[in-house]
């Protein structure tokens, strides 16, 4: 059976006045049917633009090259921009970080949701039928007094409620894949737990695959089956979430975990990560872009093509010298 999403050797560059930015370097990523995959890394590691590349949201100065970007076996790259409209929003939905700014402030949220559904639904829907369907989805995801909520403007709703509305917007067209980019990082911990529980149980029960972009490793481990670790536009480790977050094999994954408070007892145990992300405008980037920060670095890491080593069937690491 085909994977829901299968990206092979995705390379992305941006043309800017300051030079060519080598944003993504041969990224491989797949999401199986009904699977939830976490895409994690620091700010600037290329997580969000990977998600944006799938939906062609990267803007006019982006240069994409990939062996394939396949949805359910069909390569999306050959589609015209017009044909792509039947994919974006309908087969693949996206949930953005800041719901308040993603919603139109001048329209009632019910109207926004109805428009989204009518624009993307494969069949013609009357406004009334669309509204009924929207209300049904809002009720399914546990929003009380859905009919009243639909009459509210975004400014009248809390951040958590706006994010629930965005989840409904993503679910209403019954997509096969949802790309959720930091959907809860603007929310506090109790609301975050409620919104994430709602999003993930809705996706799991419907069999919707999820690409969950986050820098919060604990959140990723609480909801995802698999984790992909990115750094400076390169994919460094890909494996079962329980493995990657508990026994990381790539030196970067390990350092990332060491710098975070999880499982530690005192502030002294936090080990700040050395160095910075490399300047991606450089034309002489080392072969492994983590080389300048890596404690295990050897000369070959900068020059030779770094192999993608399979540690097990479902766990690969892009490193010459992974941890045991």
């Amino acid at each position: 059976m085909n994977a829901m999403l299968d990206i092979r050797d995705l390379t992305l560059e941006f043309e800017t006045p300051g030079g060519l930015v080598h944003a993504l370097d041969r990224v491989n990523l797949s999401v199986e049917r009904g699977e939830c995959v976490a895409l994690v890394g620091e700010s600037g590691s290329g997580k969000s633009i990977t998600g944006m590349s799938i939906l062609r949201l990267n803007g006019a100065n982006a240069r994409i090259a990939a062996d394939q970007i396949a949805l359910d076996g069909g390569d999306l790259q050959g589609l015209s921009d017009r044909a792509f409209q039947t994919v974006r929003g309908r087969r693949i939905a996206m949930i953005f970080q800041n719901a308040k700014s993603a919603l139109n402030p001048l329209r009632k949220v019910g109207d926004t949701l109805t428009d989204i559904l009518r624009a993307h639904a494969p069949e013609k829907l009357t406004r009334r039928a669309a509204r009924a369907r929207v209300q049904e989805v809002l009720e399914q995801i546990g929003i009380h007094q859905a009919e009243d909520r639909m009459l509210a403007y975004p400014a009248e709703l809390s951040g958590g409620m706006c994010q629930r509305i965005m989840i409904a917007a993503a679910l209403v067209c019954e997509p096969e894949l949802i790309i959720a980019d930091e959907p809860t990082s603007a929310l506090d911990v109790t609301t975050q737990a409620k919104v994430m529980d709602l999003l993930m149980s809705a996706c799991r029960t419907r069999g919707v695959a999820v690409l969950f972009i986050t820098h919060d490793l604990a959140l990723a481990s609480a909801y995802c089956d698999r984790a992909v670790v990115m750094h400076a536009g390169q994919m460094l480790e890909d494996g079962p979430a329980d493995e990657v977050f508990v026994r990381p094999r790539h030196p970067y994954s390990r350092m990332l975990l060491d710098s975070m408070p999880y499982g530690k007892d005192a502030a002294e145990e936090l080990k700040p990560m050395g160095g910075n992300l490399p300047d991606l405008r450089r034309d002489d980037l080392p072969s492994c872009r983590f080389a300048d920060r890596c404690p295990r670095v050897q000369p070959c890491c900068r020059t030779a093509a770094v192999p993608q080593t399979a540690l097990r069937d479902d766990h690969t690491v892009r490193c010459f010298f992974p941890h045991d």
Partner: protein
Amino acid sequence: MTEILLEAGAIVKDFPLGRGKVLRAVDQVSFKLRTGEILGLVGESGSGKSTLARILARLLPQTEGAIWFDKASLASFSGPRFARMAERRDIQMVFQDPLASLNPRWRAGQIIGDPIRRLGTAEEKQKRPALVAEAAERSGLPAALLNSFPHQLSGGQRARVDIARAIVLRPKLLILDEPTSALDASLQAHVVQTLMQLRADLDLTYIFVTHDLNLVRLIADRILVMQKGRLVEQGPARQIFDTPKEAYTRELIAAIPQLGQRRIDRTGRTPV
């Protein structure tokens, strides 16, 4: 038994909503802070923790209640009047979003030196460049960046400018309002390490306002838990996390995601 540095007695803050209605943002909060302690102030958005922090920093007057700092009552002084008192030097605040709180038209060095210009002694004013350089170095801001404007700095560097500005007059108490929440986790560790070093070097006491419970568990000696303006529980950090007494505290702790702890499984249910 160490000394009490600050004591808050039944603090109340009402914000008028118009038509005679009020929002009680802080409701009868009392606690004591010992010298050298790190006090974590936690709660969800809207719980009143930032309002309380601003009252303690004398940026907002309380509606009722008393504050003693170093055994002197601050109750009746706030705002402009407090700015002329000796204690203004001793209580400093580090703000949540440095990009919003740092003057965009000032260079880092000018921002860091501003408290000296306003509150410093004649001697400090004379030594201002040296004091600014020292504060920057202690805060981990490279001297070469003192001529930069806030927008030219990274998030981590901006946080360091705000910290340097807060410590330049050698205060006794630092009130930190979500100092690391705008930062990436890997940068957060750097800033936390700097704050711990500063506390040891300068004998500081911290009030750390945050909703990052994973972090506060590591650094705080004691924790105050706020909900809807009220103090629902206070105690040693260990005790709050290991044996919380109040239902709300338990709920807050249960909501923290933990590594390797599944909340929703493949079938869409919560694993038992």
